[in-house]
């Protein structure tokens, strides 16, 4: 029962090695090949997904930069517009002031001219009155007393008109 046979032990060892080769070739290698291919596909898909994610992140960053730039531009444009508006406002107000002053000057000038004209008209009326008075005196031979009365009357009338 316990007799050892070297030949049979060697046979068993060879059998085990052959069995290992059978398992390796017809089971492990076949399973590993399929699993490896599947793993490669998964790795490839993961790599592609990583690449796409990276690309998306880059694009997002780019857009964010562009948006930031656009915000700056918007601020600049708004500032420019505000400045332009303020300048325009200043110009309009300044023009209005100038025009107003011009109108006032012109009005003053017109008033002066009108005043001069009125004075001239008044002087002409006085002249006419003097002529008229002289004519009347010349026509009626008045005494010195009459003349003095006439002059006084004239002066009073002239003063009343001036007031």
């Amino acid at each position, binding site marked *: *029962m316990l007799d050892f046979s070297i030949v049979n032990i060697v046979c068993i*060892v060879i059998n*085990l090695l052959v069995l290992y080769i059978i398992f390796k070739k017809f089971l492990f290698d076949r399973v590993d090949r399929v699993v490896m291919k599947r793993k490669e596909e998964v790795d490839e898909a993961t790599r592609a997904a990583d690449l796409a994610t990276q690309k998306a992140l880059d694009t997002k960053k780019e857009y964010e930069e562009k948006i930031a730039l656009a915000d700056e531009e918007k601020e600049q444009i708004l500032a420019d517009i505000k400045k332009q508006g303020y300048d325009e406002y200043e110009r309009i107000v300044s023009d209005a002031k100038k025009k107003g002053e011009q109108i006032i000057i012109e009005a003053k000038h017109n008033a002066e001219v009108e005043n001069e004209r009125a004075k001239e008209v008044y002087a002409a009326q006085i002249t006419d009155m003097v002529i008229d008075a002289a004519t009347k005196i010349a026509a009626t031979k008045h005494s010195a007393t009459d003349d003095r009365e006439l002059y006084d009357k004239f002066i009073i009338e002239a003063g009343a008109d001036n007031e």
Partner: protein
Amino acid sequence: MDIKELLKEILLKDKALIHLPFGNGKFDIYESVVVTWIIMAFILVLLLILTRDFKVHNISKRQAAVEAFVSWLRGVVGKNLGEEASRYTDWIVTVLCYLACANTIGLFGFIPPTMDINVTAGLSFMSIILVEAAAIRKKGAAGWLKSFAKPMAIVTPMNVMELAIRPLSLCMRLFGNIIGATVIMELIKHLIHIHSVSVPAIYPVPFAFYFDIFDGLIQAYVFVFLTSLYIKEAVE
């Protein structure tokens, strides 16, 4: 036939099945070797059928089951081997499958090859070669020799003795368990045969489940578990 004769027949019968002429004499090929060839042929055919038309996508249920089974077996064995000795997983799985078939082949009327001490000796020899080869590969020849003096120089003789004790214990444990189970089953069958009138034929079934299947599988697992532990210890 009494029990004594039965035991003689089981334990002392001529194991030689094939007599090959060699020089002036001959050498015998034992029945265990021939049954091993039958197991190998069965496994080869089974693998050819199971692993036919393996695909990467749209796999069949058969392929899914095979992949899951291989993965599970590698997981069970790899857990005992550890990370550093994972390269030896396939060999251990091969031995486990062979032992599972060899220990349970008694169900089909064959004599289990592991009932022959030459088979368990061959298995143990391969195991210890693998353990020491793993140690030499990991530590180098000098490191392997130095490892005999660890943890202390005084234990060196015991460590050297372990070179023989480990395979001997593996060999004897498997051989003893399988021959014990076979003897018990033969005795039960003999008793049933003697008392066939009063005992229903179904009585040996639970015993067959235990001794032919459960015990066979447990012993297969114990053998590869211990081998895995030795390899793990050798590469640490």
